[in-house]
C-alpha cells in the first residue's frame, strides 16, 4: 500500500544519498568492459554474476520440483487407488507398469514404487529445498542486500551451480537404468543401500545416487564458503552485523550449517562407497543374503545413521532457515512494521543453528542406539521448541497493528507461519522419545515433516519468488494468479497432510506399497483416496505458478520504480535493470538498521531507507 499512498523516494534521492555517503571502490574503472558477461555463453550459461546464478538455481530447482512432485502423484495413485489400472502410465513408465495379461490391469511395480518414494525425497530435499531455495536467494540477496558488487568468489559461485547441475544430470540419468534408480529411501541406510543383492536399485542406481550427491555436496560447500566469506568480508560501509536484514542472517547461519555438516555426510558416503566397492565392512556385519553369508564382520549400520543424521538434522534447518529469513523480511515489508524483536530473531536463528548439531539422534530413538543416550537428545530436541516459539510469536506480533499489504508474497509468508506452527507442534510429539516409540516411521512423521519443512519451506520459497521476482526479471508476477496459487496451495497442502496425522496415530507405517494384507492398516482407503485427490489438485495449482512465472519473465507488468514495495533494504536502491556490479557508481553506505518501517521519513514516506543517516539523537535499531 505504501507504494501507492506515499511517493517512494525518487531514484534521484537514492542516487544522491549513494553519491554523498557512498563508498567508492573504483569498481567500474577496473571493470569498465565487462569481460565476464561479454557473450551469450558467459552471460546466460557460464555466468559468474550472482544474479544470473540465482536465476539458474531457481529455474533448475523448479524443474526438479515439478519432477519430484509429479513422482509423488504417481505413488499417491498407487496408495489412493490400488485397485485402479495404471496402464495409461505405461507409455511414460514402461516396464515399471506391469500389465496383467488376462485383465489388462496395470499395476505399479513395488520396486519402482520404492524408487519413486526415494527419488521424491532425495530430489525435493536436496535439489529443490536446498539448492533451489538457499542457492537462489543466498545468491540473489547476499550481495544485493549487503551492498556488495558480487560474491567473494564469482568463479566458485559459478562452479557451485555447475556441480549442482552435474549432480542433477547424474540423478536424472539414474532414472532410466534398467534396474531402476535407487529405491532404499532418501536416507539410504545400509545394508540395503550397500548390497546390490538386497534391492535392484542398490546396484547401478545407488552408485549414481552416491555420485550425484557427492557432486551436490561439492556444490553446497563451494556455495556455502562463498556465502560466509561474502557476509563476513564484503559488507558495505556501515553494514555492521547488527544492521543486516534477517534474510542475510538466515543465509549466513545456513551456510555455516552446511559447511559443518555436509562434509560429515560426505565421509559417510565415502565409507559406504568403500563398503560397496572395496569390500570393507564399516557398516556391514553378520549378513546372510541371497543364500550367501557375507564375509563382512564388525561393522555397524548405526554408524552410518549417525553420520547421515549429523548432516540430516542440520539439513532440516538448512532448508527452513532461509525460508524463515525470507518470511521475516517479506512480513516486515508488507506489514509496514519493523520485524518484532530483531535481536531475538537473530539469537533464535543462532540458537536453532547451534542446537541443530546436537539433536541428530532423535531420528534414531528406535534404531538400536543405547536408550540412555536418547535422554540427551530428547532434552536438546525439545529445547529447540523455545527459539522456534519465539520466532512464531515475533512473526505474529509483526503483523499486529501493522498496515498489511496482502499480496502473494505476504500471503505465502503468512501461510508459512501457519504451516510452521502446525508442523512444528507435532515435532514436540516426535522429539519426545517415549511418544516416538509409537509414532516413529508412521504417517504421523510423514505429516510432520512435510508440513514443517516441506510445505513451509516451499511457502518461504514462493514468498521469496513473488517478492523478489522484480529483482530477477525487472517485471512483476501476476498478483491474481499468485493469490489463486496461494489459496489453492494453502487449502490443498493442509488437505493432503492433515489427515495423515490420523493414519499415523493408528500406527500405519510409512513406505508401504500396499496395506491390504494388514488387518490393522487396511481400513484407510477413503482417507488415502482423499489425500491422493488433494495432491493432484494441489499439483495443478503449482502449474498455475509455473505458468505465471514463465509468462511474467517476458510478459509480466514492468517494474517502473526502483523501490516498488517501499522497502528499506539495499537491493531496492540498485537500478531496475540489473548490471554487473549491481550499482553503477559508488556502493551505497548504510546508516541504520534494515527495519525502519512505519516511521515517516522527511518526504512523508512510511519507511526510512537504510541509506538515510540517523537523525540527531536517534538510536539505531528501533530504539526510542
Amino acid at each position: 500500500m505504501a507504494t501507492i499512498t506515499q511517493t517512494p523516494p525518487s531514484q534521484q534521492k537514492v542516487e544522491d544519498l549513494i553519491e554523498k555517503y557512498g563508498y567508492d571502490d573504483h569498481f567500474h574503472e577496473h571493470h569498465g568492459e565487462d569481460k565476464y558477461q561479454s557473450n551469450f555463453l558467459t552471460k546466460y550459461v557460464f555466468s559468474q554474476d550472482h544474479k544470473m546464478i540465482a536465476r539458474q538455481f531457481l529455474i533448475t530447482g523448479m524443474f526438479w520440483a515439478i519432477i519430484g512432485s509429479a513422482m509423488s502423484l504417481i505413488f499417491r495413485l498407487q496408495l489412493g487407488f490400488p485397485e485402479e489400472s495404471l496402464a495409461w502410465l505405461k507409455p511414460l513408465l514402461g516396464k515399471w507398469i506391469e500389465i496383467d495379461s488376462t485383465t489388462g490391469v496395470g499395476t505399479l511395480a513395488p520396486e519402482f514404487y520404492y524408487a519413486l518414494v526415494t527419488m521424491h525425497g532425495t530430489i525435493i530435499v536436496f535439489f529443490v529445498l536446498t539448492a533451489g531455495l538457499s542457492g537462489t536467494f543466498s545468491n540473489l540477496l547476499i550481495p544485493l542486500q549487503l551492498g556488495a558488487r558480487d560474491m567473494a568468489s564469482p568463479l566458485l559461485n559459478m562452479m557451485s551451480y555447475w556441480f549442482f547441475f552435474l549432480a542433477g544430470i547424474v540423478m536424472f540419468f539414474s532414472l532410466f537404468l534398467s534396474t531402476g534408480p535407487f529405491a532404499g529411501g532418501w536416507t539410504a541406510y545400509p545394508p540395503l543401500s550397500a548390497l546390490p543383492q538386497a534391492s535392484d536399485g542398490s546396484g547401478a542406481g545407488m552408485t549414481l545416487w552416491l555420485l550425484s550427491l557427492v557432486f551436490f555436496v561439492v556444490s553446497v560447500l563451494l556455495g556455502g564458503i562463498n556465502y560466509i566469506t561474502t557476509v563476513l568480508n564484503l559488507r558495505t560501509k556501515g553494514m555492521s552485523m547488527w544492521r543486516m536484514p534477517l534474510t542475510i542472517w538466515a543465509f549466513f547461519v545456513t551456510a555455516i550449517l552446511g559447511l559443518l555438516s555436509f562434509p560429515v555426510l560426505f565421509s559417510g558416503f565415502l565409507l559406504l562407497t568403500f563398503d560397496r566397492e572395496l569390500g570393507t565392512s564399516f557398516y556391514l556385519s553378520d549378513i546372510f543374503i541371497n543364500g550367501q553369508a557375507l564375509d563382512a564382520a564388525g561393522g555397524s549400520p548405526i554408524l552410518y545413521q549417525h553420520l547421515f543424521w549429523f548432516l540430516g538434522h542440520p539439513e532440516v534447518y538448512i532448508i527452513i532457515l532461509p525460508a524463515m529469513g525470507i518470511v521475516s523480511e517479506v512480513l516486515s515489508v508488507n506489514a509496514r512494521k519493523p520485524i518484532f524483536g530483531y535481536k531475538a530473531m537473530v539469537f533464535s536463528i543462532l540458537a536453532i543453528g547451534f542446537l541443530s548439531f546436537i539433536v541428530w539422534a532423535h531420528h534414531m530413538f528406535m534404531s538400536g542406539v543405547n536408550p540412555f543416550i536418547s535422554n540427551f537428545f530428547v532434552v536438546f530436541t525439545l529445547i529447540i521448541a523455545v527459539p522456534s516459539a519465539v520466532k512464531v510469536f515475533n512473526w505474529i506480533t509483526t503483523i499486529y497493528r501493522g498496515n498489511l499489504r496482502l499480496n502473494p508474497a505476504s500471503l505465502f509468508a503468512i501461510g508459512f507461519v501457519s504451516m510452521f506452527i502446525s508442523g512444528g507442534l507435532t515435532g514436540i510429539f516426535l522429539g519426545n522419545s517415549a511418544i516416538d516409540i509409537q509414532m516413529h516411521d508412521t504417517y504421523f512423521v510423514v505429516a510432520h515433516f512435510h508440513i514443517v519443512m516441506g510445505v513451509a519451506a516451499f511457502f518461504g520459497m514462493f514468498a521469496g519468488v513473488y517478492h523478489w521476482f522484480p529483482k530477477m526479471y525487472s517485471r512483476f508476477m501476476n498478483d491474481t494468479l499468485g493469490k489463486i496459487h496461494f489459496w489453492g496451495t494453502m487449502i490443498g497442502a493442509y488437505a493432503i497432510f492433515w489427515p495423515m496425522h490420523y493414519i499415523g496415530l493408528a500406527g500405519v507405517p510409512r513406505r508401504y506399497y500396499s496395506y491390504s494384507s494388514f488387518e490393522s492398516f487396511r481400513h484407510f482407503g477413503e482417507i488415502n483416496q482423499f489425500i491422493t485427490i488433494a495432491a493432484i489438485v494441489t499439483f495443478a495449482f503449482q502449474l498455475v505458478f509455473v505458468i505465471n512465472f514463465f509468462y511474467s519473465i517476458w510478459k509480466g507488468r514492468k517494474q517502473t520504480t526502483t523501490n516498488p514495495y517501499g522497502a528499506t533494504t539495499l537491493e531496492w536502491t540498485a537500478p531496475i535493470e540489473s548490471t554487473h556490479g549491481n550499482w553503477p557508481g559508488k556502493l551505497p553506505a548504510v546508516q541504520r538498521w534494515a527495519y525502519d518501517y512505519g516511521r515517516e521519513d522527511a518526504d512523508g514516506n512510511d519507511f526510512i531507507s537504510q541509506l538515510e543517516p540517523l537523525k540527531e539523537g536517534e538510536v539505531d535499531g528501533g530504539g526510542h
Partner: protein
Amino acid sequence: MTTVVVLLCIILIAVVALQVGKVTELAGKIRGEEEVQLSSNRANSRLSLIFMVVFLVGTIWSAYHYKNWMLWYGPHEAASAHGGNLDFMFDLTLVFTGIVFILTQILLFWFVYKYAGRKGSKSYFQAHDTKLEIIWTAIPAVVMTFLVVGGLDAWNSVMADVDPDEEVINIEATGMQFAWILRYAGEDNKLGARDYKLIDGINPLGQDWTDDKNLDDFQPSDLVLPVGKKVRVRITSRDVLHNFDLPHFRVKMDAVPGIPTYFVFTPTKTTEEYRQSLSEYPEYQQPSDPNDPEGPKLWETFDYELACAELCGKGHFSMRKIVKVVSEAEYEAWVNQQQSYYLSTIRGTEGDPYRDTKVLPMEAGKVESETTDAFKSALEAEDAAKKVFQLSYVFFNTGSAELDSGSSKYQLDKLAAILADNPTVKIELGGHTDNTGDAENNQTLSKARAESVYNYLASKGVDASRMSAVGYGQNSPIDTNDTEEGRANNRRTEFKIVEQ
C-alpha cells in the same frame, strides 16, 4: 485415453491461467494500483478469516471424527502395560500443543484480517518489547520442562532391560527379506547361540547346535504370548535393517544385522478381550470382507499384528505375522504342543553334532512314554504274539555285544522301573540279527546282546529269576534282508512278557 485427458487438463489450466493473468493485468491498469491493492486487502483479509474458521473447525471436526484413533481413547487402547504411559504422554502433549495451535492460528489469521491495510490506515511503530519476549520465552521453556521430565521418565522405564533374576519369557524375532522368523527359548528359557555363517537351508537362524541352549528352542509361525507375563524380545536381522513393530502394544525397535536389540513389554489384554472391547464400537460391526456382508464382522476377525517399520526392500510391506495373546493356561498348552526346531528338523541330519548319540537327554521323555505305552499294550494283549515289543531305543556298538549304555539307558531304566512296579511279570529278552555274515556268529552275537540287556536290567535291581535271555540269530526276520533299511529293522532286541 487417460493420458490424453491428463494432457488436456494441463493445457486447459495453462490457457485459463494465461487468460486470467491478462485480464487482471488489464483491469489493474484501469482501476489503478492503489485501488487494486486495497481491494486485494479486503478480499484476502476476509478469505483469511474464512480460512481460519474453516481450518479450525475442520481440524477439530476431523479430530473428533477420527477420535477412535486417538491413543488411550476408545478402541485404540494400548494392549501392553507400558503403553498407557506413552499414550498419556501423547495426550498430555496434545493438550499443550492443541491450546498453542488454536491460539496462535487464531491470532495469526485474526491479525491478518484486522490489520490488513485499509484506506488511510497506518502501521504502529514497535520494534520490540523485552517484557513480552521474556514471557513468551519462559512459558514454552516451562512447558517443555514438564514434557521432557514426563517423557524421559516414561522412556527410561519402558526401555529398561530386565534384571538377570527376573522372571521373563525370552523370545527372539529375526527379520529377513521379507519375513519374520520367531524363536522361543524353550524349556530352559535361554536362547541358544547363533552364528550367521551357519545359516543354510534348514538352519535359517544359524543356530549353533553344539550349544545345548539351542536344542529346545522352537520356531512357531505365530507370535503367541501369555497375558500378564513380561516378555523380552531379542530383535535381530539376517540381512538389512528391519523394525519389529507391534502397533497395538506400542512396541517398535529396529532389527540391526550384527547388533541385537531388545524390547521388554507385558501384554495386558488377550486377543479375545481386545475383540470384545472392539465389539462395543459400531465401526467394528461392519463385515470384515466388504464382498461378504454376511461374513464375520471386523471385531471378530481382529488380530494383533507384527509388521516391519523400517524400509527393507521391495517386499517391506508384506512382513506380517499374527500375534495372539492368550491366557496363561492356553499358553502352556500351546508351548507343550511346540516341538523344538532341533528335534523336528535338525536331528539326525548332517548338521546335527549329536548324530552318533542315539538318544539325547531331551528325548528321554519321549522314550519313556513310548516304552510305557508299549509295555502296557503288551501286558493287556490277549494274543501271545502281541505280548512282545521291540526295544527301539536300545543300541549296541557295531558288531559287538557291548551295550551303548549312554543312549540305551533311557529305555532300560524305564523298563527297570516298570518291572519294579509289576513284580509278577516275567520276561524274555530276545536278540535278533540280520543275515549278513556267518549264521553261527550271528547266533552267538544275538545271544550276547540279549545278555547285555539282561545284565543291565539286573544291575538296575530286576531280579534275575524273572528274566531270560535268548539269542535267535538271523532266523526270525521281521523285514526283508535285501535292503539296508530292512536289515536295520531285523537287527533288534525284543521284550516279551512270558508270565504276568
